[in-house]
């Protein structure tokens, strides 16, 4: 009797633990916990198509500045019709994308997600994003966007996302600093040579030899990659492949290094360690007279500097006439592969990229949007930086990363860093970078 009871006990326990395990598996494999009320929705949608469809929208806008804006846009959309209800899910930046990857692999992704604009091709190739060609065909939606942004969301000439916002970099300079050293505050530097001359005038040293103010520094206040692309207007990488070792880029890298040579690499590393952490802004503190930043920078600093003291100018040109090339990126809206309601999701994406919603986003967040009409709207243009950014889009290079070289930077950046550290010369390093990325693309083909 006792024995039988014990056997029963053993069997029951085993069955229970197995059940627990299986239910745990099915819980993660079947319904995502993030869904909440969403879990039963797909079935309901399938059985009675007339019923309201709930879309789960993932984005990383969780701050007190951005969240209210995106939630307002969503609630307007929900109120505007009665077929679709969009639920906003905040996912921390970066984490959301890894989460999406797992959700796509498990076959239960969110309906719409905000993703990185320059890596769309990778997700298209890996079947992580839904092809939007069939939806887009109907309404020529590409005319809404700046062309380079549209180009970034296409893979094999078919779109896999709709651009949402973007950014573009240009020169900010301190007018009082210009006046102080006798430069005309209305005449910002136009070429690299001018930039260098102005910067040297603006450098200020204290008696003990430490820099009190630096006119400009190519790496710490812009980045070598920006200046290399500015030189010949060709991205470091695009869908065709890498363009690292053009003669202009070799010259540009030498020029970038010359800033370190003149100002001292060690001093500049120290400068970067105190200010480059992005928590302490050198331009606002008056320790840097010129800097290259994206358009939203103005909105961040204008409350702390006199707006009339902030000068803005296009990127200086490599040589007169070579172009004020700049770089940008952004975010796009995607339907993860395997999402249940692509038609409804697309409708929501169309709404978010339409002029009204884009204008609202631009106006309240001073963020550069993907819609040409919204970016050039008269009300949006009232803000001087927004106007400047809209004009600057024609010089903005967006370089979509080829799916066969998603990690090209891990190979190429250290080779360029070696030049800046004085361990290699520009020509040989850029040749090596070109070969390394080409080889990476070949092996990943």
């Amino acid at each position: 009797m006792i024995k039988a009871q014990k056997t029963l006990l053993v069997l029951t326990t085993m069955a229970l633990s197995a059940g627990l395990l299986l239910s745990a598996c099915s819980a993660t494999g079947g319904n995502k916990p993030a869904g909440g009320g969403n879990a039963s929705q797909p079935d309901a949608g399938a059985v009675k198509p007339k019923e309201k469809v709930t879309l789960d929208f993932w984005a990383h806008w969780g701050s007190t500045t951005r969240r209210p804006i995106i939630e307002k846009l969503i609630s307007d959309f929900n109120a505007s019709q009665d077929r679709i209800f969009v639920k906003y899910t905040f996912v921390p930046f970066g984490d959301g994308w890894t989460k999406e990857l797992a959700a796509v692999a498990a076959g239960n992704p969110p309906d719409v997600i905000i993703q990185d604009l320059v890596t769309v091709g990778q997700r298209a190739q890996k079947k992580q994003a839904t092809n939007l060609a069939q939806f887009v065909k109907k309404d020529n939606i590409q005319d809404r966007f700046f062309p380079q942004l549209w180009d970034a969301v296409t893979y094999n000439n078919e779109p896999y996302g709709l651009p949402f916002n973007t950014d573009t970099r240009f020169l900010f300079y301190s007018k009082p600093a210009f006046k102080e050293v006798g430069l005309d505050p209305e005449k910002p530097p136009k070429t690299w040579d001018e930039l260098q001359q102005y910067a040297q005038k603006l450098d200020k040293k204290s008696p003990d030899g430490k820099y009190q103010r630096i006119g400009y520094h190519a790496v710490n206040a812009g980045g070598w990659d920006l200046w290399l692309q500015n030189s010949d207007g060709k991205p470091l990488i695009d869908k065709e492949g890498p363009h690292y070792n053009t003669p202009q880029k070799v010259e540009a890298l030498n020029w970038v290094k010359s800033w370190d040579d003149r100002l001292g690499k060690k001093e500049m590393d120290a400068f970067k360690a105190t200010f480059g952490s992005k928590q302490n802004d050198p331009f606002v503190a008056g320790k840097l007279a010129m800097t290259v930043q994206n358009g939203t920078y103005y909105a961040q600093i204008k409350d702390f500097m006199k707006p009339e003291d902030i000068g803005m100018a296009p990127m200086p040109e490599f040589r007169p006439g070579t172009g004020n090339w700049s770089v940008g990126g952004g975010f796009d809206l995607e339907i993860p592969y395997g999402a249940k309601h692509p038609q409804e999701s697309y409708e929501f994406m169309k709404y978010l990229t339409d002029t009204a919603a884009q204008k609202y986003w631009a106006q309240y967040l001073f963020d550069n949007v993907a819609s040409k009409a919204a970016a050039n709207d008269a009300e949006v243009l009232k803000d001087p930086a927004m106007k400047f950014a809209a004009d600057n889009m024609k010089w903005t290079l967006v370089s979509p990363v080829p799916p066969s070289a998603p990690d090209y930077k891990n190979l190429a950046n250290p080779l360029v860093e070696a030049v800046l550290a004085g361990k290699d010369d520009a020509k040989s390093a850029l040749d090596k970078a070109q070969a390394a990325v080409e080889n990476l693309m070949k092996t990943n083909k």
Partner: protein
Amino acid sequence: MNATIGPKAAKPRKRASLERREAAQGFMFVLPWIIGFIAFTGGPLLFSLYTSFTNYDFTSKMDFVGLDNYKYMFTQDPLFWVSLKNTLFYVVLMVPLTTLASVTLASLLNQKVPGMRAFRTVYYLPSVLSGVGVYMLWMELLSPDSGIVNVVLGWFGITGPGWLFDPNWTKPAIVFMKMWSVGGGMLMYLAALQGVPEQLYEAAEIDGASPLRRFWHITVPMISPVIFFEVVTTLISGFQIFQEGYVMAADPGTPGSPLNSLMFYNLHMFLKAFQAFQMATPQRWPGSCSQSSSSLRSSTCGYRNIGSTTKEGTDDERCGDSPPGQLFPEPAPARNGQENGRVPCALRRRAAVCGPVLVDDLDLAQIDGRDYAVSAVVFPEAVALP
């Protein structure tokens, strides 16, 4: 005869069934672990062994490719050997140094001096802290110009190195940081030291052994099992190094920088898996799978969370409880002061000390090392120091 054999024969049978029952119960007790092992360790381990022979990328393909991945790793991948070399260099430098430091520290803290408990607490405290907060702290301490380490070196006329900005000094810098938190190992050694019988020392003392001799011939042999255990666990944790290369990189957009000097094996594996989606590269086997992938995941999540906490501050951390700013519907809210009510104390303190601080919005996303948006600048004048 039969009468005697009968019960004797019956007895072992009964014992056998008792043993069987006990064994069954024993298995019952370990069952949760066995299930956990199969589901979360063994299964994924075998799965990743299999995927190392395929071109698995999470979502689109999983075809058998034989030894191609291994061939690529050993002969073509330019970062594989670099990352392996970096990891070995770090382990070889870190394990002996931290072991030596913690044994020395434990011996010092084993002395009978008044107030010893306070010292023990002080030296143990750093190992309570962990994660990205500590890295951030050390990035400040090791800052080439204004960091306290180089400032103190400067008092002795030594020009400190660039630490995290100088490729030759990045790994020593991290080992230096690790030596600060040897408290965990120190605690083990301290416990072992207190277990060494007093009479051994007394006997040696009567025989005229010097303190150094006593240490070498009594203490070290007596605590050698603990040293062995500690060295093994430190070796394991040394090979798992990952976050340091990810977080403490000189250029936040290039993990492992400067010059790949912090490109550790696990970091390389992580980037291949989650940046290039090459889940099947053999780097992932056997170092990865469930256990270390999940520890990798949790460490990156930890990074993100802490990162966002330091950037934005949780509600609890904010000093001064001004109501959350209602942005709507005014287009451009006055940010000064109002924003300051919603920033972490640390940043406000920092603003008071260092001048204006740009507070990264959570949306201040770094893609390719570039910032996307920033929400506010904290200014000293609006700071109320708690």
